[in-house]
């Protein structure tokens, strides 16, 4: 008996012989030598984005193109900034190594880790970068987080994820900037199956219709709020706004990034990955207790595959509860949501669900699978989007 995403399954657990992923990851399968499908997926991505000179050349060619387009404009691109390692390092590289003039965009939902805030302030000050902070209406933010608890799926930060995307696109539209950089790296973070990381503004809307208590602000192209469904995505894409993940082409080594950021930008480690957002403390707790989910299995596995972590170290670390799960911060989050511990516990006791138990746009996206494939080839978004949504098993 094993609990997968909160559901009891009549299966024995099995762990990959190469990484630390196991059968608690939905959709995972194993080959004859005991290696998991996530490792196979990683190898496929490495074929698409090999770590070699050719990739670096592609990266520089793309950057040159972006610079050319940015000529006579104030900014070349937008970079999403959270104050965590990945986004701060990306900002550093963009300015110092690639000579770009980015506009940093931060989305504030009221749960920023103050350490990350200090990191952002230092980074933009030292690098001489303009920062645009898009702040949500906290009443909406709170409502959406409670909606996610009531919906009882592992997607507990749906609203914020959409809010971040919407903020980046709406600033890009307002400032007429055509490229959005983001600091994702499958080599260091891994790719989570969509059962754990499905990004769909229409799902947010449908959950909000069912469980929300206050109306959400309406979408405006340059002030998107929490609206980024298929329709809005199509609008921004047709307006020529593209996303780009430079780390897919760049030999990103976390340890080196840490040292450089500390030295150059007085950067402080927030304490854990994702801890630029205090709400992840609560999410990690709910994931462990209610869904038997440990995201470290995805991230550590990625680091093992890319030679940045020893498997034994990862296995030992997984025995310990993640530092992200801090009782004081969990209580802060509950208090900030304006609910009592009893109310929170009542949401914990709700039966688990999947995102596909609620109306969403996944079937529509599947219908547009081939246009999305073409969009990925034309560089409107990374090829990984297509792979993650249509090639990686998630059930």
């Amino acid at each position, binding site marked *: 008996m094993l609990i997968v995403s909160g559901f009891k399954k009549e299966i024995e657990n099995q762990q990959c012989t190469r990484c630390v992923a196991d059968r608690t990851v939905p959709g995972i399968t194993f080959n004859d030598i005991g290696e998991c499908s996530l490792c196979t997926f990683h190898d496929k991505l490495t074929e698409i984005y090999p770590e070699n000179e050719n990739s670096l050349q592609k990266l520089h060619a793309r950057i040159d193109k972006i610079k050319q387009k940015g000529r006579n404009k104030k900014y070349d691109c937008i970079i999403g900034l959270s104050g965590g390692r990945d986004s701060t390092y990306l900002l550093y590289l963009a300015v110092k190594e690639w000579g770009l003039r980015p506009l940093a965009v931060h989305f504030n939902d*009221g749960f920023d880790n*103050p350490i990350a805030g200090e990191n952002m302030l230092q980074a933009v000050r030292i690098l001489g970068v303009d920062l645009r902070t898009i*702040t949500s209406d906290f009443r909406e933010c709170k409502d959406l987080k409670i909606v996610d608890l009531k919906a009882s799926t592992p997607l507990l930060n749906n609203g914020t994820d959409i809010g971040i995307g919407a903020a980046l696109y709406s600033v890009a539209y307002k400032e007429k900037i055509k490229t959005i950089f983001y600091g994702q790296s499958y080599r260091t973070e891994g790719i989570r199956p969509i059962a754990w990381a499905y990004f769909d503004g229409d799902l947010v809307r449908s959950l909000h219709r069912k469980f929300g208590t206050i109306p959400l602000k309406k979408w405006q192209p340059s002030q998107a709020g929490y609206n980024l469904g298929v329709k809005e995505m199509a609008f921004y894409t047709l307006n020529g706004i593209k996303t780009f993940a430079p780390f897919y082409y760049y030999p990103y080594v976390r340890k080196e990034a840490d040292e450089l950021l500390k030295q150059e930008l007085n950067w402080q480690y927030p304490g854990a990955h994702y801890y630029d957002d205090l709400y992840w403390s609560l999410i990690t707790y709910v994931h462990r207790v209610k869904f038997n989910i440990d995201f470290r299995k995805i991230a550590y596995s990625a680091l093992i595959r890319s030679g940045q972590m020893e498997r034994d170290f990862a296995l030992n670390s997984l025995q310990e509860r993640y530092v992200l799960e801090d009782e004081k911060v969990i209580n802060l989050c509950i208090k900030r949501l304006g609910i009592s511990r009893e109310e929170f516990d009542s949401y914990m006791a709700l039966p688990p669900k999947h995102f596909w138990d609620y109306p969403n746009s996944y079937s529509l996206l599947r219908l547009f699978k081939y246009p999305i494939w073409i969009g990925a080839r034309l560089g409107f978004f990374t090829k990984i989007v297509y792979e993650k949504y249509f090639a990686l098993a998630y059930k």
Partner: protein
Amino acid sequence: MKIGIGQLLVEGGEPERNIERAKRLIERAVEASCELILLPETLDLAWTHPSVFDEAETIPGKRSDYFCKLAKQHAIWICLGLTEKENDKRYNTSILISASGETVHKHRKINLLEVEFPFYETGNQLSVCETPFGRIGINICADNYADALCLGHSLARMGAQIILAPSSWTVDHSITEEMNPYKDKWIRPLTELATVYEIPVVSTTSVGYIVGGPYEGKKMVGCSLAISKNGEITEGEFNEFASDLKCVDLELGDGKWKGTQFGQMINRKRG
């Protein structure tokens, strides 16, 4: 007089975290050789946060005592805002602590906003305090509203050679860095006081997101102000998520006028 403008990140209902951050700002001000640090209004619980009803403390009390200890330890003057409890009443209060750790002055906010009425009682006193720097007057945030400037005028006429105002200036959540967040809402009245009486006026606001209470959905974005006695403006940076310190050297007013001389001086200036 070197003053540290301590734009503190204040999280609603999180006194321990806020006070710990205030301590770090005080240490930074000491490193920067400031003689006084001015911190924001109600920095313990945040302005109009619902925790005011259960978690306010007396003055003197454990929170004010802690700041007195810090002032003495670092030999720095501290002016800050706290949520004060007295019997069953609560006040939006600011205190001035000397470098030897004594609370030498206390002011309770007078010009409360309507949304504050359920949270705080109205202050009923206004006074100035003699210090080695000169006479210091303290008021709080909206005490300096353009339509309440009689309070600042009164402090100046009591002989204040500088006015310090811990604040929590709020703006709508949609305001972003490229905008002028307050327009002339604060600059105009503070500059009026500074230039009419030839005294510096300094107001430090908190930064952060309002998470609870009647102003939930608004935020504080810094841009604190120090206006010199000649009307020169020093502004804190726009930011809503990190504490920050800005230092400013200010010459205090020379305290040359008294009583009716103020009226004569003002009339002369108006020609």
